Each structure stands twice: as structure tokens, then as C-alpha cells.
């Protein structure tokens, strides 16, 4: 059982430095803005589209493309929860205060969920509102909250982003620095964007099975995989990363 004190201490650390306190609301703002931008651009495309194109039009998927950027920011939030300690030199002070390393890692994971989840909810919901309302205003096809696809996006979308924050947290533990962890996290999450220029055997992996893509495509209704497989790939991957972080953190000098 992890003391609530350790968790409160993590919140004090999180809330007393600029990077985390700026990144959290900035992620939400960026999400809202991207919803508006993609909504606008897509509405423009829709206006000049053929009848067949209009039939195939996926307003939710098109309007929520900004999630690929927001996921990077929210993963960085997870990174910072660890790496700000390495950067500031406080990891040793924190470990001298919490000797059981598993407890410190668990508290950081807990804080990651407690901060990334509300940020993810706000980001996804705001992006949904700005993108679909911009599409509607542009006279394009759009989706309204009652539809199952929208519910899935609004409920599962934030969970996927929160899982990616835990992925960032794991990288922070494994790479012990903001710059390397953010770089690796960003590269990993955005690599699938280059799927079209990748060799064939990589193509399938990147477009369908890459952990963040698998889950995000299920969420936006564009995945060839069944839902459980898409979520399962991400959940398994994040669990493995957290496990690696736990082993690494527990067995290395601070």
C-alpha cells in the first residue's frame, strides 16, 4: 500500500514547477485549436468534394486528426513527471525520502493518471466540440454526441491518451532525462506518419499494429482490428514499458 503522503508529495512537485503546469493547459489549448484548424480545412475540402467522396466522408476521423499531435504533448507530460527530478537533481533527495523505489514509481504513475486523465478528457472533448462545430458551420457532414462512434471517442479517447502519458513516464525512468525521453517518445509516436514511405513489411506494422496507432484508430473508427485488439496492443505495450521501468529503476544507482 502506497502512502497517500507520497502521492501528495508528487503533486507538490508537479505543481511547483513551470514546465508541467504550463504543458497541461497548453495541451488542452492546442487540442482545441487543432480541432478548429482541421475542422476548417476539412469543411473546405468537403465543399468541393464529389458526391461519392461525400458519401465516404468520415467527419470524426478527419476532425480529430489533431490527436496525433496532442498525444505527443500528453506523453511529454508523463516524461516530465520523472525527468524534472533528474534535470533538477532532486531524484536523490526524493529517493532518500522514499527508500522503497517501487513506491516512488507507483506514486508517479498514480500522479500521471491523476493529471493526464483530466487533461486528456478536456483535450479530446474540446477538440471534438471545435472540430465538429467548425464542420457544421462550414456546411459539412458532422457528428453529434448521441452517436456510438462519438461516445467511443469521448470515453475511450482520453483513456488512450492517458495510457500514452504512462508510456512517457516509463521512458523518463528508462532514459533519465527530459531531452532523450521526449525525443524518443515523440519519434516513436509519430513514426507511423511515415508508414507510406516505409518498406512493405514495416508498412503493416506501422499502419495497423503500432501500439498508439492501433488504439487511436479503434477510437476514431478507422481500424481494421477489432476493438479489443487495438486497445489490447496499447495496454500490453504500456504495461511492458512500465515493467521495464520498474526493473531498471529498482536496480540502478540513482
Amino acid at each position, binding site marked *: 500500500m502506497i502512502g497517500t*503522503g507520497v502521492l501528495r508529495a508528487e503533486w507538490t512537485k508537479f505543481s511547483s514547477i*513551470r514546465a508541467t503546469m504550463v504543458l497541461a493547459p497548453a495541451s488542452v489549448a492546442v487540442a482545441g485549436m487543432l480541432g478548429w484548424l482541421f475542422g476548417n480545412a476539412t469543411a473546405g475540402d468537403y465543399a468541393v468534394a464529389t458526391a461519392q467522396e461525400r458519401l465516404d466522408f468520415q467527419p470524426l476521423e478527419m476532425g480529430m486528426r489533431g490527436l496525433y499531435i496532442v498525444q505527443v504533448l500528453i506523453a511529454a507530460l508523463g516524461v516530465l513527471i520523472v525527468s524534472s527530478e533528474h534535470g533538477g537533481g532532486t531524484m536523490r533527495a526524493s529517493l532518500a525520502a522514499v527508500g522503497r523505489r517501487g513506491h516512488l514509481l507507483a506514486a508517479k504513475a498514480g500522479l500521471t493518471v491523476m493529471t493526464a486523465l483530466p487533461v486528456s478528457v478536456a483535450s479530446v472533448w474540446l477538440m471534438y466540440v471545435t472540430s465538429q462545430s467548425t464542420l457544421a458551420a462550414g456546411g459539412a457532414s458532422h457528428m453529434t454526441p448521441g452517436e456510438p462512434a462519438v461516445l467511443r471517442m469521448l470515453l475511450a479517447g482520453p483513456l488512450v491518451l492517458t495510457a500514452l502519458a504512462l508510456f512517457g513516464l516509463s521512458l523518463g525512468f528508462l532514459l533519465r532525462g527530459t531531452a532523450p525521453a521526449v525525443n524518443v517518445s515523440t519519434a516513436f509516436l509519430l513514426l507511423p506518419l511515415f508508414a507510406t514511405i516505409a518498406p512493405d513489411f514495416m508498412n503493416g506494422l506501422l499502419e495497423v499494429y503500432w501500439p498508439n496507432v492501433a488504439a487511436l484508430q479503434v477510437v476514431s473508427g478507422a481500424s481494421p482490428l477489432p476493438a479489443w485488439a487495438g486497445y489490447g496492443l496499447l495496454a500490453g505495450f504500456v504495461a511492458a514499458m512500465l515493467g521495464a521501468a520498474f526493473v531498471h529503476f529498482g*536496480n540502478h544507482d*540513482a
Partner: protein
Amino acid sequence: MIQLNALTKRYGDVVAVDDLTVTVRPGLVTGFLGPNGAGKTATMRMILGLDLPTSGSATIDGRPHHELPSPLRVIGSMLDAQAVHPQRTAYKHLLYLAQSNSIPAGRVAEVLDLAGLADVAGRKAGGFSLGMSQRLGIAAALLGDPPVVVLDEPVNGLDPEGVRWIRTLIRGLAAEGRTVLVSSHLMSEMAVTADRLVVIGKGRLIAEAEIGEFTETGSTVLVRTPEAAAFSRRLELSGAHVQAGDDDELLVTGMTAPDVGRLAAAEGVPLFELTQRRVSLEDAFMELTRDSVEYGAAR
């Protein structure tokens, strides 16, 4: 009480701490002394669970650090005073440490006061001078009112007033019955604060004793007498070790000055001079660690 039991640490091929067995007792200031690179900090990091021993163990009151449920209430430490997030205020730094060990927030104000930092509690640590950081480090070490305190080079970079403050504080902590381990590479500093010394070099234990023993083992008595040769033989018969100096001088070890004087009186030997020459701690330390200095000047 801190116990090191055959504590060993290797970083790659380098042996930083080599089979160190030491007991640091309560109620005393134990000076942990050695040249730079001797393994003092590595040892302290292992006591605090930051580095994992290659073999052997370090325990605090019988338990390794990672088994302590609230470590700050058992062992307070300052290893690197600058290790504070530059954007975090002194108050928030201490607050998070206190929260992690369920120490009431009121204690934060107490230690800030004790360290003379009450006025700058709301300032970001990034703007602190070395002296202020050092005081913040001490405040953090005392947060949990711990029975064991470990300080790595606490007077480094302090102004004279700060040095005096830390000395008084350290003496006070030991007087309250706490176990105090203070490292330094300066023997002169230890001479005024420590009761007991643990000297290491190249990771190995060189000496461990009360501070007085370090000077006594090396002390000599200077004798000047016109009957140097005869008195020298008489001294050696009584078990002293004698080295002839210039002219009528004798350097006597293994016998105290009063005993040399009494012997001379009993034998009717006139003495022109009888002086106890106490080796300074500094010299004793240099002598002890001469073979283990990593980067010494050529001799």
C-alpha cells in the same frame, strides 16, 4: 547507529569502496575523512540507498535504507546541497519531502526557522547562494527530527559565520544523542568538530579511533642533555625508542614527557630541554593517507 558490513562498491573496473566494516555510534560526531576520491560519497550514497552495494551491506539502526517505511524520520542527510529544482521555492522543496514521510507541514516552518531561512522561504532555490543552499540542505536533513544524520562536506563553500553555525549545530546534534556522520577532506575541520574519526583511502579503511589517539600515536618528546649518549641507552632500557638528533638532542617516542623527566631526575641527568611535540592532526592525516592519494604532487 550506522553499520557498514564488508561494504563494497565497484563502478565498472573501479573499486570505489573496498570491504569497509565500520560502526558509527550514537552521541558522537564521527568524522569521515579521506582524500578526494577516497570513496566517502559513494559510501554515504550506499547508506542512503541511492547506490546499490556490489556486496556487503549498510544498515541504519539494523535495517537497510530501502526497508525504512519513513526514512526521513530515521536518517536525515545532505549529500548535494545544490540538488534542488531551481524553480521550486525553499518552502515547496521542504514541503514535498515532509509530505512524502507524513511529517506535518508545521515542521517545515520550524526547520526553515532553525536554518535561518524563514525570510526566503518563498524564494526559488535557483537564486540561492551556495551558503543558502547549504542551509536548505541542513533544513531538509533535520525535517524528520531523525536520530541519525549524515552530512557530506557540510562546510564546503561556506563563509566563516556559516562554518561556525554548522559546527555548533553538529556538536549540538551529537549532544542530543544522535548519530552524526560528517565527511570532509580537511583534517583541520574535523579536528574542531569530530569526536571520532574514520579515515579511508582508495575505498579502504585506514584508521578508526577517537580523535586524540591520532595525535598521541605519533607524538614525540624532544630532550636536550649534555649526556645524550648515556641517557639514550638508559631510555632504551626503559622501553622507549630513541633517535639521536643534532648535537645533544634526543627524539624519544614511546614514553611521555613526564616519565622522561622523572627518569632523568632519578638518574641525575641534567636536562636543558624537555618538550612534548604533538604531531598535528593534519600531519597525522597526511602520513596516514600518503599512499592512497589519487592525484598527489610528486614528492
